[in-house]
């Protein structure tokens, strides 16, 4: 057979590597600032753009989609070409992919700080960017499949199965979760409402973890770990089982983010059991990684990249064991809404994704630049600082989460709550400080790495043209009788993609369809009415400011919660919530039953300076809400959009909505005046007060009536 010569595209790999480092530093820095703001709210410099509610989505989007995203593409572009013995399909597509992705990141950063957000976690980006993401993702898939079709290797290696599953599943998740009705160019409403929105969102959110942070990185592990250790992969059979089991089971586990909420019991239980069943498939990846190192542990000592990988795989094992434990309802009852969850995700993010990326960079950059790493010693320092950073980050957060949850649940023997919410907040401060120190160490490590790699790059010369050769694939494959049955699908990339799609589609379908079609899953409550125009505008301000990053709107059926907040939340209360705002973290108290709890003037003063109304508060000040004028002109299009989503405003209400809005605003202004506060009815604060005073009231009044 004739050997064909070809060249690898190293340039795109290099660019993705640079982007990974750059966005990694940015994302971690933003995270650090957000962490500091939790004990020093003034660290936002009193600017709307840098408040916690806007920085937190910026941090999560930056580290997930910018840092890890570019890391994925770096690793895929490097490994795919070599595993297939082929150059990337099209240099143009590679270019579009690279620059398109960077454009998305820049747009994301700009829009998020400007408060343009859909209010759905990890899917905050507005609809024009959503469309752009879809297009760039298709370009990535096109380029990948083009390369696969032109391959010179008959069978696809396990890493590529993971890449393919990642491609189809992320496409599915992104499209389904991002269905929204545009109101204007930078504003849209989620197509789903309340319980349905929550279910779709956490199906997406959980599987963003699964198929953006996990499966592609498992693929990278399967390439870079045996490469670095120069050892054969431990078990081919284990890779097959754990691959299919992982992608099938993962999809179902989304509802474990919604335990004890208003999501139907059966859906919650599915979330629990599928999470429990995920332990083994997740650990399959860890085992296959660690046991590949059998007989090569001495190399771990000498190879700093491998060292990072070992910690990464171990962190993966820890996080994927803890995840199922947190999905048990009784554990979740303690951990949910607390910093325990923050600790959990950071073991995965800092340990698994962070360390894996660092390990690959330390191995890859010297290879791309045909030189040795500038300083092994510095890299080792990075390793220890990073590890210390993770520990210092995680331990205080575990402790804090557990402590705060216990305090929330404490009752005196007389049957009263023992602690005011504020007591539990002030107790968190030392832990928040310790956490930011851990985060800072991790960032310092990353900076050391950047310096080390820049020095390496300066010394070396970039390997622009890397030649390789392999025989072309000709004719049909003659299968051997002793071939494993799975070898068939490894020769058929399109079939592999289709089967993956079917496997990942099942879980979502089974969970969604009944919730959308069977009425008993969301019992209607007659007293629940659509928001008034002013409340709707106020709600959009709530979404814009990212209030959901610190406040939940979901009272769980626990004594400690109904005593603190009021009647537990019912599914029927959220039917007009596009999007739902249940939140996932209680840095501040739950707001589901806030309406009517305090006077209007309390809210006014609280937004101006939270500590004036609740001493010790770590909420930032929102003085601009008192100054800024509400965009009243948008009311008509907002009401129209809501009508299209099925919210039962009367026919033609969009045209007169603005009158109702002004009327309600005047009432609130008059109310404020009674308490000595002069404000104009067209200020944003008025709309926000209207919304906050509405929260949870629909069934509150009902409840009072039945009591009488």
């Amino acid at each position, binding site marked *: 057979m004739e050997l064909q010569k070809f060249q690898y595209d190293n340039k795109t790999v290099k660019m993705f590597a640079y982007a990974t480092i750059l966005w990694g530093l940015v994302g971690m820095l933003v995270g650090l600032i957000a962490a500091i703001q939790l004990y020093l709210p003034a660290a936002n410099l009193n600017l709307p753009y840098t408040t916690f509610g806007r920085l937190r989505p910026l941090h999560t989007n930056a580290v997930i989609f910018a840092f890890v995203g570019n890391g994925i593409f770096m690793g895929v572009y490097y*490994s795919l070409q*070599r*595993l297939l*013995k082929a150059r990337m399909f099209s240099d143009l597509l590679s270019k579009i992919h690279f620059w398109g992705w960077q454009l998305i990141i820049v747009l994301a950063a700009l829009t998020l700080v400007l408060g343009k957000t859909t209010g759905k976690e990890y899917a905050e980006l507005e609809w024009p960017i959503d469309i752009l993401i879809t297009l760039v993702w298709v370009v990535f898939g096109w380029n990948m499949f083009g390369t696969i079709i032109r391959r010179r290797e008959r*069978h696809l*290696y396990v890493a590529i199965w993971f890449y393919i599953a990642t491609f189809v599943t992320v496409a599915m998740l992104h499209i389904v979760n991002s269905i929204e009705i545009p109101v204007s160019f930078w504003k849209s409403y989620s197509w789903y409402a309340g319980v349905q929105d929550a279910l779709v969102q956490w199906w997406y959110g959980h599987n963003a973890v699964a198929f953006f942070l996990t499966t592609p990185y498992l693929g990278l592990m399967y*390439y870079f770990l*045996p490469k670095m250790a120069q050892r*054969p*992969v*431990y*078990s*081919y*059979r*284990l*890779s097959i089982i754990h691959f299919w*089991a992982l992608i099938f089971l993962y999809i179902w586990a989304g509802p474990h983010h919604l335990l004890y909420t208003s999501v139907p*019991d059966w859906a*919650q239980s599915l979330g*629990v*059991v*599928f999470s*429990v*069943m995920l*332990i*083994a498939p997740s650990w399959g990846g860890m*085992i296959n990684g660690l*046991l590949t190192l*059998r*007989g090569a542990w*001495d190399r771990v000592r000498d190879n700093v990249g491998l060292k990072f990988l070992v910690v990464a795989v171990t962190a993966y094992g820890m996080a994927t064991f803890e995840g199922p434990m947190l999905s048990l309802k009784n554990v979740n009852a*303690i951990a949910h809404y607390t910093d325990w969850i923050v600790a959990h995700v950071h073991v995965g993010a800092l340990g698994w994704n962070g360390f894996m990326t660092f390990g690959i960079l330390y191995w890859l950059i010297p290879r791309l630049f045909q030189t040795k790493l500038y300083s092994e010693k510095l890299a080792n320092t990075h390793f220890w600082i990073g590890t210390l950073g993770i520990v210092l980050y995680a331990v205080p957060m575990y402790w804090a989460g557990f402590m705060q*949850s*216990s*305090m929330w*649940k*404490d*009752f*005196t*023997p*007389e*049957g*009263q*709550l023992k602690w*005011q919410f504020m007591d539990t907040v002030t107790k968190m401060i030392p832990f928040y400080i310790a956490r930011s120190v851990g985060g800072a160490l991790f960032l310092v490590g990353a900076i050391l790495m950047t310096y080390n790699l820049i020095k390496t790059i300066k010394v070396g010369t970039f390997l622009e043209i890397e030649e390789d050769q392999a025989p072309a694939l000709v004719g049909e494959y003659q299968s051997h009788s002793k071939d494993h049955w799975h070898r068939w699908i490894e020769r058929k990339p399109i079939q592999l993609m289709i089967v993956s799609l079917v496997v990942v589609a099942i879980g979502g379908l089974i969970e969604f369809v009944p919730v959308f079609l069977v009425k008993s899953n969301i019992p209607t409550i007659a007293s629940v009415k659509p928001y008034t125009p002013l409340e709707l505008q106020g709600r959009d301000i709530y979404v814009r400011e990212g209030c959901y990053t610190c406040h939940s709107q979901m009272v769980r*059926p*626990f*004594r400690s919660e*109904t005593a603190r907040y009021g009647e*537990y939340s019912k599914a029927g209360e959220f039917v007009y919530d596009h999007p739902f705002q249940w939140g996932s973290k209680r840095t501040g108290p739950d707001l589901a039953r806030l309406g009517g*709890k*305090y*006077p209007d*003037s*309390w809210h006014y003063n609280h937004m101006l300076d939270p500590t*004036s*109304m*609740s*001493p010790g508060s770590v909420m930032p000040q929102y003085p601009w809400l008192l100054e800024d004028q509400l965009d009243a002109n948008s009311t008509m299009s907002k009401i129209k959009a809501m009508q299209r989503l099925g919210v039962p405003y009367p026919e033609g209400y969009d045209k007169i909505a603005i009158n109702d809005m002004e009327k309600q605003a005047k009432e609130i202004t008059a109310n404020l005046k009674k308490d000595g506060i002069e404000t104009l009815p067209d200020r944003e604060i008025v709309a926000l007060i209207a919304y906050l005073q509405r929260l949870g009231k629909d069934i*509150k009044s009902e409840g009072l009536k039945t009591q009488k």
Partner: protein
Amino acid sequence: MLMNNFNKIKSLAVVMLIPAVGFCQEQTTKESSSYFTNVLFLTLLVTIIVLAIVIVAFSSVFKNIADSDYLTSKYSNKKEDNSSTMRNVTTVLLMLSSFAMMSQEKVVAIAKVDDGRIGGLDQFTFYFMLAIVFIELVVLGLIIYQFNFLVKTHTVVEATSKAKKVESKIIMSLTDAVAVEEEESIMLDHDYDGIKELDNNLPPWWKYGFYLTIVVSVIYLFNFHVLGTGDLQTKEYEKEIAQAKLEVEEFMKTSANNVDESTVKLLTDASDIAAGKAVFIANCAACHGQLGEGTVGPNFADEYWMHGGSIQDIFKSIKYGWIEKGMKAWKEDLSPMQIAQVTSFIKSLKGTNPPNGKAPQGDLYMEGGAAPISDSTAVIGDSLAIQIKADSLKSTAAATVTTAKK
């Protein structure tokens, strides 16, 4: 006591295993079973047990290596060290368990005092269990450290073959793996950019663990959704509320705390007023001002009241709130006694004329009899005296609670 001794003996038998078992047995016999419905307790207990099992597993593996023929023959001098470490670890474990035994009695005694509960556990139990977890972690760390040390000695001194035999013994029995030096026999003909693949069996513990999770999942779903034997969340909630109601009623029967809007009397004791003031500053001052001068909420120092100015009316306003006017109900946050205290404190503010007083709201209220106003205003000035008195009251109250519970 006999029971106690019996427990001690029994626990000593399983001493290596779970110091916590003895601990919770004690709890069941002496206390109510309520600890077993406490999530925090169960979580800690499970952590303790799991860690203990891990420790035992690790130390037995460790002991196996330390005692393996390979080491005996090759490094007979080293073996001494290793077994002595083993002895050390065992001693630590024994000490740990006897510590557990000793403390049990303390727990029972101390568990009666109910202040400072953490997650429904009294502080001692909580910190005690936390301490066990911590000590277990330390022991585990020591074992792993020793284990590492042992494995390192191998790799440093020994080239490959013999050392791997030891590794194989442990790992292979767990993983059902083919030994590294024989792996050519299971090497597949796959070659991806130089990466080869072995065809090792699925590790048995992994495979059966996977089956186990599937079985558990099926049982879980059956329990909650087919047989309906498990409580779904609404039912669980109703039970929790009913249970809490019972407990509170039980407590209130014997408590001096049993006041409501019909039985409340004006408290004139300086310590009560001081306690009321503390509650006021913490909870009410944000809306009513530090001196009750009124900000968002009305002024308390004048003679005008929106919802009645009698002690009963004010008590009621605090307890149930006036939701539509922005006054929340405090009955879930404050005990009846605390509401009575803060009501009395508010009554004492009349005529104090704080600066920046808010204009009067509501109707003029005239006291029926002569309330001891002058008395309590004098008391406010003398905050130091109040402080001391309040402290002494606290301890007496605690004492009352303890005796009441007995």
